[in-house]
């Protein structure tokens, strides 16, 4: 069993929903990333989604675009991202790490070289935003051969037969994009997520994470009642931008606080589910 699968089965046994924060590697500066990852775990993260900076993040909203620009000012490459993971693993060998990014940096490294390097430093899964299952011949086998989970996005517009393809080709968990929009959009619609979740749970033979547009404890609470994992991106990343001028200490403080808000909201939802 992969580290991601193990984590989900532990959480399931304990009746808990996973909290999965996102951070762009190298934002706001290279030496912050590993610190931030440990801090997130300390504040209740069950897994971490680590963003691989790409010059043209076409599925991301302004908050993550700016994070990527900050990281790229430091010329953060995929090699650097893997190095962050290696250093993180010196102190933490249990928290699953998922790389999230776009295909081109991976293609530039080469699928097999990437898969080998990623698994050897301790990456557990890869989510490639612009790589749908249809185009993934060659890529998925390379990930598979190294035991990396292949995480796909599904969205409110994904038709039923595509869900089947994701079910067949994905592993670890599936990432439900809770709205039509880019990361950081504002219009999370609980009723719509509830409606889609039914069909999704019937089709998917793996856990379902919900992300995009979860901004605060309240929305995390609602999503925790529906999914197996709650994924938080822009709401955390925006705190880096807001506190950048004050320095790293203030950034850590703000992110720690926000993580606590999400964790306790999710725990409340889990407690409620347990009662029912």
């Amino acid at each position, binding site marked *: 069993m992969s580290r991601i699968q193990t984590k989900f089965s532990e959480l399931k046994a304990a009746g808990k929903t996973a909290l999965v924060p996102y951070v762009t590697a190298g934002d706001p500066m290279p030496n912050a990333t590993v610190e931030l990852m440990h801090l997130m775990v300390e504040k209740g993260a069950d897994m971490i989604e680590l963003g691989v900076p790409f010059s043209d993040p076409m599925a991301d909203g302004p908050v993550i675009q700016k994070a990527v620009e900050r990281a790229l000012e430091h010329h953060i490459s995929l090699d650097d991202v893997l190095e962050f993971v290696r250093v993180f693993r010196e102190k933490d060998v249990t928290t699953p790490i998922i790389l999230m990014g776009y295909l081109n940096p991976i293609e*530039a490294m080469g699928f097999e070289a990437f898969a080998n390097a990623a698994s050897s430093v301790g990456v557990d899964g890869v989510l490639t935003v*612009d790589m749908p299952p249809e185009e993934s011949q060659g890529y998925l086998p390379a990930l598979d051969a190294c035991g990396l989970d292949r995480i796909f996005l*599904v969205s409110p*517009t*994904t038709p039923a037969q595509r869900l089947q393809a994701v079910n067949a080709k994905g592993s670890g968990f599936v990432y439900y994009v809770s709205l*039509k929009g880019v990361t950081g959009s504002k219009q999370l619609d609980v009723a719509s997520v509830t409606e889609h979740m039914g069909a999704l749970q019937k089709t998917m033979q793996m856990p379902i994470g919900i992300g995009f547009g979860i901004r605060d404890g309240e929305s995390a609470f609602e999503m925790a009642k529906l999914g197996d994992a709650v994924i938080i991106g822009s709401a955390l990343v925006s705190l880096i931008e807001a506190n950048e001028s004050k320095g790293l200490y203030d950034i850590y403080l703000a992110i720690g606080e926000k993580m606590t808000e999400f964790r306790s909201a999710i725990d409340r939802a889990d407690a409620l589910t347990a009662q029912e």
Partner: protein
Amino acid sequence: MTVDFSKFPDEHGHFGPYGGIFAPETLMAALEQLNQEYESVKNSPEFLDELAQDLRDYVGRPTPLYLAKRWSEELGGAKIYLKREDLNHTGAHKVNNTIGQALLAKRLGKTRIIAETGAGQHGVASATVAARLGLECVVYMGADDVVRQAPNVARMKMLGATVVSVESGSRTLKDALNEAMRDWVTNVDDTFYIIGTVAGPHPYPAMVRDFQAVIGREAREQILEKEGKLPDALIACVGGGSNAIGLFHKFLPDESVQIYGVEPAGHGLETGEHAAPLCKGKPGVLHGNRTYLMQDEHGQILGTHSISAGLDYPGVGPEHSWLKDIGRVNYVAIDDEEALQGFRDLTRFEGIIPALESSHAIAYATKLAPTMSKDQVIIVNLSGRGDKDMNTICQIEGIEF
């Protein structure tokens, strides 16, 4: 060579290893819907009649194939014919495509049109068809291009479009495309994205090519009528590659025809400050397809430079990548200075002011024609007119505007 060019792309949008659909999940269903709609109408007489009528009565097709006699004599080699896409309504080839895609938008019941634009010609052509159909239109344009193509920004606004100046990234065409994709992901239910070149995810590269292929169909008939034979060479500038593939496509099986695609060498291919992925780039994935890209060793897309906004793009349509690899088309480059000289030459010898994009093709003809004999024939695609470039040219030439 025994390639059947009509069989490409395959049903998944692949031209050999290039093309495909590398899009965010939210768009996959919309792309499939567009693909099905396009497949169902592309050979239907009713759709083709409507398209042909619009091209004739609204756009002004067929465009002339004009023998540039004085300029050819000056160069002292091959006879040069210009395919006059600059005489289309709105002043460039771009409208051939927006007319076609607008018909599809209408069939799909979309009420809102979005577009990206570099030189502003595609933005104007999109705003034009939107005005004609009474659709809302939003055009994304890099902030740097908003400044250098100001006349087109004014035209788009007059036509009722909203022009969004894109400040992110390199503030040029690629960033406008990113922003248009983000809009589409968000508003996919009611919005039709009119991509302006033969790039993007399948079916765009094939569909835009088919709409632009009218250029080459006309040119082939016209040259056979005028010269009684096929041309010896074709030349077109390549940004995303739509005017080029439009001219080339009908001629691809004609093995005697040498074909040249001209990329912008900017300050020079060796300086790194250019926008010539086919001459200097490597294959990768951007904006929904696999193709040659300008990128660094880590797969980050590089900033580009060209004097012409419409060519200032780090990628290129996937069909061109394939045509390069199989050796059917030669891709060459012309720098800013050479393009400016081409601009001056055509203006002074023929009384035709070309777009800076098209001036790259003109400049290559000034190199190629003298190496050929007087009974040989070149067709240059004059993709657009130069009115939009008055700001840039006046600044360079010291003319008060």
